């Protein structure tokens, strides 16, 4: 190898590389191994779950007058295109007793008009209890003219998704509340499946999450997914595999380990009294779903309660993932910014034995392997590229880096596909399987680096934002910013 660059930088880089390569390699080794462990845990969990499906007793729960009633809360902002189908589908969910509460968060389009026409709504006087503090004023409450259909539509001034959900919690009449995004598509048994933990262990379960998958490319009839397919476009396809790995398997793994700290806002179920006792969703926090879940853990542990937060393995909720680069970029920036905010706000829990597995395992994992991941991912890449250009590193080092960071990553993704194939096998076509396998390889070229870049941007934005906040001590709230983001980018939640 002939050194083309000046000697000094090359030597400095050699030393730097010598010092950093092993920690960096160890880091990637640990990231992927932790994912592999989560997937293994998830596989155990799914096996358990699938063997029990024949006697899950859904029919029985559906026919029982003793099944606890649920309020389904749907925040809606400018959702005129899909709101009627969504509400019809939610009213049609298989469940013995549920009401649907739509909170129209100051939509400027025909969201309300569509609902009014479809359900023959009339305005009624309704005293909404103030169990949770809210910001946007409630303008009016409407119910279908028949006075029986379990639908309530609340119109309020725009104040963002969190505030809309808090209003929904206030309006909710039942002891269990289910947060669902208006653009989510739920399987008919979704409510029965996700509330089953509450029925099976009523004393302890305080929250449960449903698995979210990408609906892009699927055939949807009457608000129900009838055939699962891979979407066109590699960006969406990659996210399908990503969701599979992170949402289905990652969270099922955490749940199995008893340390689930993230319930997706696109489909999560909570005990209403617990949500009220922790003060509801924080409208000032970008990662409000993550924050709520962490807050619940904190409150339960502080109170010394024996409690459970679980993820239900069955995939039941479908959501549209961004299919353009710019929407995906803003989504990922937002997620990462939210991740930082939540972890920063609850930093005293991190590594704190008082919070058990949450404090000692789950939150530190998020700090090290989620929050810091983009920094190390991009940093490692830059150093290797520089070293190669300057001749400071040889082929072996590059190979080693590639193997640990990417090769092992491919293996983890394929393992996730294998677990899916052995459990739910929703993607029935051979073509979809082939596409998914190609994605496992291709996502390492371009997609990973791009998302790392966006996440890094989100992290930087968060750091800048916090400094400002510390400086002036006033927060204006991100409500409006949240409301004007495109649908796919609005949902908060980390990648795992």
């Amino acid at each position, binding site marked *: 190898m002939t050194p083309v660059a000046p000697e000094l930088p090359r030597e400095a880089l050699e030393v730097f590389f010598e010092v950093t390569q092993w920690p960096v*390699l160890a880091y990637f*080794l640990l990231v992927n*191994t932790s994912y*592999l462990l989560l997937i*293994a*845990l998830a*596989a*155990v969990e*799914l*096996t358990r779950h699938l063997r*029990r499906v*024949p*006697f899950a*007793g859904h029919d*029985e729960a559906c026919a*029982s*007058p*003793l*099944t606890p009633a649920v309020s389904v809360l749907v925040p809606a902002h400018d959702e005129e295109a899909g709101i009627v189908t969504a509400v019809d589908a939610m009213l049609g969910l298989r469940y013995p007793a549920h009401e649907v509460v739509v909170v129209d968060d100051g939509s400027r389009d025909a969201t309300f008009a569509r609902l009014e026409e479809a359900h023959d709504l*009339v*305005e*009624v*006087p*309704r*005293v909404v*209890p*103030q169990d949770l503090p809210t910001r946007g*004023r*409630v303008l009016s409450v409407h*119910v279908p*003219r*028949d*006075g*029986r259909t379990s639908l309530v539509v609340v119109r309020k001034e725009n104040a963002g998704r969190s505030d809309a959900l808090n209003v929904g919690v206030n309006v909710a009449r039942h002891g269990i509340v289910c947060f669902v995004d208006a653009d989510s598509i739920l399987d008919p048994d979704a409510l029965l499946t996700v509330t089953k933990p509450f*029925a*099976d*262990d*009523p*004393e302890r379960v305080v929250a449960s999450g449903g698995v979210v998958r990408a609906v892009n490319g699927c055939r949807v009839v009457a608000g129900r997914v009838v055939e699962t397919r891979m979407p066109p476009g590699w960006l969406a396809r990659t996210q399908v595999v990503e969701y599979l790995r992170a949402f289905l398997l990652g969270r099922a793994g955490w749940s199995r380990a008893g340390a689930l700290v993230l319930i997706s806002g696109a489909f999560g179920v909570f005990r209403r009294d617990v949500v009220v006792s922790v003060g509801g969703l924080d409208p000032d926090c970008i990662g409000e779903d993550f924050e709520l879940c962490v807050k619940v853990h904190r409150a339960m542990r502080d109170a010394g309660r*024996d409690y459970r937060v679980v993820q239900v393995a069955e995939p039941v909720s479908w959501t549209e993932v961004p299919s353009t680069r710019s929407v995906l970029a803003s989504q990922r920036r937002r997620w990462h910014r939210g991740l930082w905010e939540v972890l920063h706000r609850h930093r005293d829990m991190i590594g704190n034995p008082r919070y058990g597995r949450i404090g000692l395992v789950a939150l530190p994992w998020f700090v090290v392997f989620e929050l810091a991941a983009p920094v190390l991912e991009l940093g490692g890449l830059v150093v290797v590229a520089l070293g190669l250009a300057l001749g400071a590193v040889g082929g*072996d*080092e590059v*190979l*080693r880096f590639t*193997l*640990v960071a990417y*090769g*092992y990553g*491919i*293996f983890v993704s*394929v*393992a996730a*596909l*294998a*677990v899916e*194939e*052995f*459990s739910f096998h929703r993607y029935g076509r051979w073509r979809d*399987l082939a596409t998914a*396998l190609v994605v496992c390889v291709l996502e390492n070229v371009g997609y990973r680096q791009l998302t790392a870049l966006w996440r890094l941007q989100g992290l930087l934005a968060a750091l800048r934002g916090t400094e400002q906040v510390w400086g002036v001590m006033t927060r204006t709230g991100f409500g409006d910013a949240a409301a004007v983001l495109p649908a796919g980018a609005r949902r908060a939640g980390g990648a795992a």
Partner: protein
Amino acid sequence: MTSAAGVVARALVLAALPTALPTALPASLPSALPWALLVLAAVVLLLVGGIAARRAARRRRAERVRRATEPLRPLLLELVAGEPDEQADAASRLTALAPPVWRSVEPAVVALLSKVRGDSRAEVVGLLEDRGVLARARADLHRRGAVERARAAELVGAAGDATSVPALVELLTADRAGEVRLVAARALGRIGAAEAAAPLLSALREPRGRGGVPPQVLAHALLRLGPAAAGHLTAALVDDSAAVRATACEILGRVGAVGSVAALRERLRGDASPEVRARAATALGRLGMPSALPDLVAASAPPAPGAVRTCAVRALGELGDPRAVPVLAGLLADDDGRVAALAGPALVGLGGPGRTALHEAADPGAPEAAAAPDDAVDAVPDAAAADAPEDAAPGGPLVRARAREALVMAQLREVVPAQRRPSRARAVAPARLVGDGA
């Protein structure tokens, strides 16, 4: 194939070791790298092969089952829905099927158990008996694997197999796996054998949470036993365990056991557990006996705990006795928002006098004015601003709003059915309900 995911899980962990180790070796062993790459590639390919094999096998099996069951579909329909001679013919042809064909069609037959009732279901049960499926399930109730026992219990429950009751009671009381006990409880409810009442009630005494059968499942099973269990339930009202007493109250109210009113009133008046008192109140409301009025009125006011009061208020509405009007009208201004919110709908339940009281509360100046959906709306106070105590005082905006809300909701419920049938007058009363909800 069901434990396949577990096998994959173990394989993953094992496979991770050889792929991870070589990369962690010191740089002085560069020759290990190609080797590691090779192993990694091999493991990935192995996984891909596994996925493909699994998928191919599953598709082949699905196709086989489809080919086997499709021609038998008409036979299944005849079995459950045909004329008696067709049923007999279908049963004998299905009984005569070769074992591999039967195995393909068996799940479809079992699925029918939960879809039909009466003689149609009896035909399915008979077929399962003739094919030895039920005998196998009865034997499986004692298998080693918890999942096998639970599946067997589910099947004998779905088939309403009375001969399995002793075995199921045994599972309910003594099985070491919580889920097996749960399925056994459900199965006993579906079979509906009265002798299951005592074990179901005592299962409530176990500590909840880990391993215990959820009270809701036990309660539903007891409910399905119906009035046959009423004697056991009334006796259980004085059980030592609060959970047992609470569930007994709940079920007695739902099965319409009017003979238990005195005992339920006793619970409402003096039980140590608020949960039991709340359930007793609800049950008394359901049973609708006027003798419960004084106790419910007493329970609707402090010092009774909030949960008891809300249930008592709701029960007063269901009881429908106009003597409760002044009490409920007063509760519209109650400090406890939940109690106050329920007082309005409860007043609606009391009929004319209740409505009059609501009209008065809604518009103290003009008691006769009817609240209509459109003119009532603008008077709703901004809920966020309604925290001031004077708002919740009698005649305050919050009380007026609560009364209006109740009136408007009641009006909606009544007006609509009349409007809905423009071209057909209903002279005939709706038919009796089919079945008893079992």
